[in-house]
């Protein structure tokens, strides 16, 4: 568990190699099968009519003109299918009395967010469907909308008047009650008299996952099974839920997630569009396709984050934390979606982070509003928690007038204390915060940058420098089915794999996880190649089709490697065990004398042996097998870990703040992550780079903003600011290695780590740059305007002014009939 810069390079092993990704040629060139590429004979196309209003009663829908339009096959409203369309599932009712409105795929008599589907067009071409969608005449009676999260929590305006409240569920954890720690109120009371109390309220703004490939669905009902192709992260869960909701036999449904272009949690969902196309295909007996536009994706695919966090941290005068109390408001949007309410709950176990807090309480109120529903977005609950606590630890350090690392070191779990049971009740298996921190500071040039910061402050430089610290950990690798069950989650967390030994010695590996850009085919090939002693190129990873990979729980929560990868190991080990008696028979030796190494079965103490490919061929021929041995090496395994998985790392960010304009510029970013053993360092770097940028983007750029009417103002990429490579800098990254003890590979998840870690590092750095001007918080995204206003002492209450830039005004110069209506 020491900091290492060099990775041991065993050239005979695939694990640890910087393998270029197998899948990239087809993904990058686009010569592959995305859902929207799929064209079936007789396929019909679907377009949606969506509500422009956040909350309204549908008083009439006139579809006659649309129905009469060229090549329109049918037009369907919610009322037309009210009895058969079913409701979208919520797989995680976080409390027994959770209130959740019925979630109809097509609104029937009332719309509850701007973007909700009110009618569906089926036509012979996508263009004709789109044209006809413009011809549906919907009459609405607009109702008051519940938009602001805090106001909605007070039930001032009801998002669903029939429910009588906007409050969906109240979920709490208290360490005194749970027996995992002390009483937080006592700790706070004591700190108010003889210690330090830090009280802050932080905003987690609403974000949009903004995956590259829009969601798309093709349903073919013409075979014995109904086949759905969907740009989803969760083909197996989708298959199960399609069956559960529609009553169609699960055995009659096949779901395929072909190559999928990103998800970030945004495709961890069963969508209205999936249920609608499934229904239409069955009704019409013909294949149907629906692909959302980017505008529809931004407006109606689920959003993420959106919390207010009220935090109270109690500490003694030396900076030793004595208690933490968290009160969250979490905006669910219009419905409680698949995992919806569970997202903030995933943060409940992470506010105590890497620290030994003696007392802890977490209270969360989930709230319904008339905005797009929220659900998982990269990190799901854990970035929010990490942001809260890492901001607070910097505030505590500022209060004490000490370096942020001083308070962290005073409170963190030391390397000798692992495994450690936290105040939230989790057992962290391994880690070394000291080593990661030492390496990160070295990479960063911590002392030099601190000296520069002091010099700039002393000289009154208009460009000030700030340093932000984030010593994060997270729980991932979802997983332990028992724990998920204890949290009322609707499924397990195991993962499945099969290894098929082909007669030619090639290997097919079936995995139940469903990659959508992660590089599974490469990393899993490396694992299988090492385990079976075959060439990397000889391994084929098959996934994402429930007919091929028949069993699985898909990809989210940084689980694919730590759960799915381990299932592959276990299946491969079974192959070897099945091959041993055959090898012994062919080698005329005792099974006990057979050794397996580097793809070769040999007789101990001799030079006699057979390659695994030879055994595979002999097994296929089955001419000469021992009595009673089945002629197959193929093996399955299902792995359910006993614990989550706890990557951690120390992230350091230096931000320059131009005090004349409020402009913020990243100067340096260094991080040392501990994700246990690494299968493919190149893929890890990619995950970290992308993850970091996504977290940085929350700090600086991204925000889904609604206006007073509940219209999404940031409804295009003009106003929803995504960064590109031009907006980022080179990151200085390294790793320490504390192998996980809960899987044999010793791996920890990395998919969400960068996103979880980076947001507070950036905001801490910005605040640090201007703290001497009397500033202790700037709301995210830290726009130049907000930073400048803070410097001017103007606190505008935080809300982003809701106006879009007018670049898409339809009025072209002198040439348009709507001229004059510009602006």
């Amino acid at each position: 568990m020491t900091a290492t810069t060099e990775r041991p390079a065993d050239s005979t092993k695939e694990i640890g190699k910087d393998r270029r990704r197998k899948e990239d040629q087809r993904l990058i060139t686009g010569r592959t099968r995305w859902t929207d590429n799929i064209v079936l004979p007789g396929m019909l196309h679907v377009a949606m009519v969506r509500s422009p209003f956040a909350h309204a009663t549908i008083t009439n829908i006139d579809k006659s003109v649309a129905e009469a339009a060229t090549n329109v096959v049918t037009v369907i409203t919610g009322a037309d299918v009210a009895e058969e369309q079913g409701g979208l599932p919520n797989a995680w009712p976080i409390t027994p009395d959770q209130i959740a409105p019925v979630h109809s795929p097509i609104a029937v008599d009332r719309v509850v967010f701007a973007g909700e589907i009110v009618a569906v067009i089926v036509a012979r071409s996508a263009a004709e469907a789109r044209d006809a969608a413009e011809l549906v005449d919907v009459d609405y009676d607009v109702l008051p909308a519940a938009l602001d999260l805090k106001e909605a929590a007070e039930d001032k305006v009801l998002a669903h008047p029939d429910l009588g409240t906007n409050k969906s569920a109240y979920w709490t954890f208290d360490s005194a009650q749970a027996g995992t720690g002390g009483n937080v109120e006592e700790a706070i009371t004591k700190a108010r008299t003889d210690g330090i109390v830090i009280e802050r309220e932080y905003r987690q703004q609403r974000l949009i996952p903004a995956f590259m490939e829009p969601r798309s669905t093709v349903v073919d009902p013409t075979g014995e099974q109904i086949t759905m192709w969907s740009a989803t992260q969760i083909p197996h869960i989708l298959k199960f839920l399609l069956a559960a909701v529609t009553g169609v036999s699960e055995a009659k449904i096949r779901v395929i997630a072909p190559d999928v272009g990103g998800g970030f949690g945004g495709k961890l969902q069963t969508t209205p569009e999936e249920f609608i196309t499934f229904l239409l295909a069955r009704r019409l007996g013909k294949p149907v396709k629906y692909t959302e536009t980017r505008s529809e994706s931004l407006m109606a695919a689920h959003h993420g984050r959106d919390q207010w966090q009220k935090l109270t941290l109690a500490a003694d005068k030396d900076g030793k934390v004595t208690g933490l109390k968290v009160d969250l408001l979490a905006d669910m949007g219009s419905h409680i979606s698949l995992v919806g309410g569970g997202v903030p709950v995933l943060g409940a176990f992470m506010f105590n982070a890497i620290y030994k807090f003696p007392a802890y309480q977490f209270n969360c109120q989930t709230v319904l509003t008339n905005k797009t529903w929220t659900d998982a977005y990269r990190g799901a609950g854990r970035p929010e928690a990490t942001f809260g606590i890492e901001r607070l630890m910097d505030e505590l350090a500022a209060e004490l007038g000490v370096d942020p690392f001083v308070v962290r070191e005073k409170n963190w779990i030391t390397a000798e204390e692992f495994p450690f049971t936290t105040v939230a009740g989790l057992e962290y298996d391994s880690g070394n915060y000291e080593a990661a921190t030492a390496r990160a500071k070295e990479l960063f040039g911590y002392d030099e940058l601190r000296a520069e910061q002091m010099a700039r402050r002393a000289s009154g430089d208009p460009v000030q420098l700030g340093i932000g610290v984030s010593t994060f950990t997270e729980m991932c690798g979802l997983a332990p089915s028992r724990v998920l069950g204890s949290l009322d989650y609707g499924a397990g967390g195991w993962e499945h794999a099969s290894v098929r030994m082909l007669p030619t010695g090639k290997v097919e590996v079936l995995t139940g996880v469903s990659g959508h850009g992660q590089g599974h085919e490469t990393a899993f090939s490396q694992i299988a190649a090492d385990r079976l002693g075959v060439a990397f190129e000889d391994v084929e990873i098959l996934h994402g089709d429930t007919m091929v990979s028949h069993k699985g729980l898909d990809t989210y929560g940084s689980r694919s490697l730590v759960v799915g990868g381990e299932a592959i190991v276990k299946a491969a080990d079974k192959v070897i065990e099945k091959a041993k008696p055959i090898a012994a028979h062919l080698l005329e030796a005792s099974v006990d004398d057979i050794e397996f190494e580097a793809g070769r079965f040999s007789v101990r103490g001799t030079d006699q042996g057979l390659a695994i490919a030879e055994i595979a061929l002999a097994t296929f021929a089955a001419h000469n097998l021992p009595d009673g041995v089945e002629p197959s090496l193929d093996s399955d395994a299902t792995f359910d870990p006993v614990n989550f998985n706890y990557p951690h790392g120390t992230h350091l960010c230096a931000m320059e703040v131009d005090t004349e304009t409020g402009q913020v510029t990243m100067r340096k970013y260094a991080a040392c992550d501990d994700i246990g053993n690494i299968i493919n360092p190149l893929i890890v770097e990619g995950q970290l780079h992308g993850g970091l940028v996504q977290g940085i983007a929350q700090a600086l750029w991204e925000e889904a903003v609604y206006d007073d009417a509940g219209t999404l103002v940031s409804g295009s990429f003009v106003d929803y600011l995504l960064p590109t490579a031009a907006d980022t800098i080179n990151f200085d990254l390294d790793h320490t290695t504390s192998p996980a003890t809960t899987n044999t590979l010793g791996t920890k998840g990395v998919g969400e780590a960068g996103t979880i870690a980076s947001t507070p590092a950036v905001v801490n750095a910005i605040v640090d740059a201007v703290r001497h001007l009397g500033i202790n918080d700037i709301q995210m995204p830290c726009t130049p305007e907000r930073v400048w206003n803070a410097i001017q002492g103007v606190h505008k209450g935080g809300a982003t002014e809701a106006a879009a830039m007018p670049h898409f005004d339809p009025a072209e110069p002198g040439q348009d009939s709507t001229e004059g209506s510009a602006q």
Partner: protein
Amino acid sequence: MIPAAFDYLAPTSVEEAVAALTQFGDDAKILAGGQSLLPVLRMRLNAPEVIIDLGRIEALRGIREDGDAIVIGAMTPHSVVGKDPLVAEHAALISEAVVHLADVQIRHRGTFGGALAHADPAGDLGAPVLALGAEFVIAGPSGTRSVHADDFFVDLFETAIGEDEILTEIRVPKHTGWGAHYAKFVRVAHQWPIVAIAATVRVEGGTIAEARVGMTNMGSTPLRARSVEEALTGQPPTDEAVRVAAAMAADGTTPPSDLNGDSSYRKHLATVMTRRAVLAAAGA
């Protein structure tokens, strides 16, 4: 994102294009690169019946020298303008602005004249051509006419180009030897500027002999900061002197408020960016 159906015409001469415009009137839209028009069509914010694509009119492409002016064909892509040595030598302010316009893809597809005719006040080209006092050559049914930059930008998305007219070229008076800088304030590189300042100055014997300052996204059209220009004239290119002049940049302007900043913040930015642009242009 499928546009409503439209007819597509691709004339090969300006005369043909003007004839088509005359025929279809306000049922037609001109496609001149399409970097603003196509999103509008795809989002169905507009549904013209006819699209007249100028992409096949060779005469509208290219950059040449003509006496005291550099002449930029309206259909010349930004990427070509940005690399052109004549523009760099005689109208450096344009080079400065165009190389950071939007992103690489848009710079290859979008055209110089198309962007100016679109007249988005946040577009990067209006302020530089205004500052340089360019002439806009416009062709119509009765021949061509020339409009000075001061009269070209009428309002948000509105210019002096008539319904049956086409912008053919932009004649930029040579500013050989002038220092130039386009100071663009953005949050991410590819976005429209929140505010940008186009400054070009002629420094002679240690003082600013002449200055031209254009402003992007400070109103419904690109603006020229004449009071700043006057105040700079005869001043040394020092931080103190330029600061005083730049403080007037936002006087009388009514910039927009949006997600990136409100009007008063933009006014503040204009003064800071003006100072920086002028100092950089003067090589200070």
